[in-house]
């Protein structure tokens, strides 16, 4: 018996204060406001334009489905039936005289010249006395135009269109911003949190930005969006440590745009969340721009950690090198899907992409999908990916030195991630990541 398709509209609980309506015929989701979205009162022109443009684009981007390549394997469809209210408070900033360190890992505080705690509504910022940086809610910030359009990621657009929490961080040309730690926290259950950070690093300026997604509410949807523009000859280190609560859904978006000879070292260190995704875009716009892109992720229980990367070469003579390494235990699942594009004109490009995954238990799974799209000659590109259990030879080697099997496994996994952490010039951040890896290993041993 064949059924004649009829349009069945199923009402599903709101996401971000929006209701999802499913059309069974088209298998497409549309959005209808279940709650008035953030009105953005008092926002300057450029923010209003940014919102409107995102709203227009959002109208053309359907709610993600796993049938789309960039959402393949993901758990985005699990969001149906979940409800999160949308933030309504305009962002306000309280400048504090001492680093607001309460509840943060000590290592993060030790490194920070500036320490900023971003929460829905009111945030606190400690800006070191001699620091050249400025940090402010977008309501107070002068125009911050985009140089390159980011990919039309649904949640990036959604956050841009409706999140109140938009901040701007500026490092003036030639200045050294030191290490700036931005810790995000979202303590309330059933609330979405979509902090937006626009970072402008001036010509020949220096910055090390550490974003920390602190454990907060368990039933939450977190969509942090960092948009970093590095001017000519700027040097940027950007590290995102994701330690969200075990039940959280997250869809992070990071977009870097690099000017002439600008240098980026990016690292994602992901451990938390029930479903946590990162979409990373590195746009190498200027001639001779360089990007090291790294990640260490470790999933356990029934988590899913999901990474989508894009190394986007425009300028000639640019270099990008990606090394993402993950481990999966329990019945967890990781996804890595990466794309390298070499646009016309990006001659003499070097682009490398490596993803390696350790599968630590029978029920765990890692998917790895590297892709290259090359439209220019005389470029050097390579990609490699691997998924497999711990090499028995390594365990045997350690055990033959008298190390018991559980310790041997720990040492091998630590070593596996060690390669990702090599050369990061923030020992305390490296230490924190190692302790998060160790905590995961400890949990596996139980």
């Amino acid at each position, binding site marked *: 018996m064949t059924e004649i398709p009829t349009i069945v509209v199923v009402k599903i609980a709101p996401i971000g204060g929006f209701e999802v309506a499913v059309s069974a015929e088209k298998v497409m989701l549309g959005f209808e406001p279940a709650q008035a979205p953030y009105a953005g009162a008092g926002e300057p022109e450029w923010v209003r334009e940014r919102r409107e443009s995102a709203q227009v684009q959002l109208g053309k981007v359907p709610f993600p489905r796993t049938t789309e390549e960039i959402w393949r394997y993901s758990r985005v469809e699990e969001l149906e039936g979940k409800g999160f209210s949308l933030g309504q408070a305009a962002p306000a900033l309280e400048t504090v005289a001492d680093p607001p360190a309460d509840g943060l890992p000590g290592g993060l505080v030790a490194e920070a010249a500036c320490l900023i705690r971003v929460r829905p509504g009111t945030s606190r910022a400690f800006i070191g006395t001699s620091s050249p940086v400025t940090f402010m809610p977008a309501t107070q910030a002068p125009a911050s135009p985009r140089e390159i359009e980011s990919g039309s990621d649904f949640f990036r657009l959604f956050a841009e269109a409706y999140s109140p929490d938009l901040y701007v961080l500026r490092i003036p040309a030639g200045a050294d911003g030191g290490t700036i730690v931005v810790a995000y926290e979202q303590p309330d259950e059933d609330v979405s949190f979509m902090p937006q950070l626009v970072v402008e690093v001036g010509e020949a300026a220096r910055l090390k930005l550490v974003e920390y997604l602190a454990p907060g509410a368990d039933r939450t949807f977190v969509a942090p969006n960092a948009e970093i523009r590095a001017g000519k000859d700027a040097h940027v280190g950007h590290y995102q440590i994701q330690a969200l609560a075990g039940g959280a859904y997250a869809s992070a978006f990071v977009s870097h745009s690099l000017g002439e000879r600008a240098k980026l070292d990016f690292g994602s260190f992901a451990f938390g969340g029930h479903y946590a995704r990162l979409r990373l875009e590195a746009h190498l716009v200027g001639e001779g721009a360089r990007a090291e892109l790294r990640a260490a992720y470790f999933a356990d229980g029934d988590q899913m950690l999901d990474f989508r990367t894009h190394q986007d070469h425009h300028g000639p003579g640019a270099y990008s090198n990606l090394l993402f390494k993950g481990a999966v235990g329990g019945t967890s699942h990781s996804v890595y899907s990466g794309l390298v594009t070499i646009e016309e004109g990006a001659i003499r490009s070097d682009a490398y992409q490596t993803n390696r995954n350790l599968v630590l238990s029978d029920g765990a799974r890692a998917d790895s999908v590297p892709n290259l799209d090359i439209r220019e000659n005389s470029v050097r590109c390579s990609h490699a990916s691997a998924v497999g259990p711990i090499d028995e030879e390594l365990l*045997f*080697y350690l055990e*033959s*030195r008298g*190390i018991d099997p559980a310790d*041997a496994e720990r*040492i*091998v996994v630590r070593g596996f991630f*060690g*390669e990702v952490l090599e050369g990061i010039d923030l020992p305390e951040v490296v230490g924190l990541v190692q302790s998060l890896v160790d905590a995961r290993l400890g949990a596996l041993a139980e």
Partner: protein
Amino acid sequence: MSGSDAKALRLEGLRAEVVGKEILHGVDLVIRPGEVHAIMGPNGSGKTTLASAVMGKPGYKVTGGRILVDGEDVTGLPTHERARKGLFLISQYPAELPGVSFVDLAEQVLDREPAVVGSTLVAEAERIGLKPELLGRSVNVGFSGGEKKRAETMQLAIFGARYAVLDELDSGLDIDALRDVARRIAEMVRAEGIGVLAITHYSRLLQELKPDKVHVFAAGRVVRSGGPELAVELERTGYGEGGGAD
């Protein structure tokens, strides 16, 4: 003491199989503290299988006989417990450990303060001719053949082994490296009384190591045993008929 209680690494009728096929068909050997035994034999005769079975490597299944360390049966023990009883293996192709430095490894094995571990490592590295800056690097990763074998010998010296199985320690070594590692091991034999089972294809190593006994290995068993002169003879005449794998 006498019999199987005596201090020795003792293999009694050892049989082992790899992927369901019997490779060792009953090997008997007794290596006492302070003794060096050499095993020579054609490719594929089962020498690496013997070394692996002694250390309990996964995939090498002991199907008969026993392995005794100072009278204690270790045949059923997992690898790390065999190591703790004093067995040490230098593999023909030592593994590389990405992200694990010698310092990490030694701290784990020795269980002493980092400063003590550090100075022990540096002293032994200098003695064996391994550049101390390699100690902070990942174990064996990107090392030359000679550096690997020096590094393995360094571990043998500091991890307190009592019986060492050396599977072609000399393969891929230049003359200087061969002399350095062999002399260091000969010294451990003399000074600390370790027992050594040295698998090799060349009498060159044995000129430095001065074996007490030389055993000819063929098709999974010891077919002939003699003194050091046997190594010289073998090098001249070869293994002859019936030497290879069965």
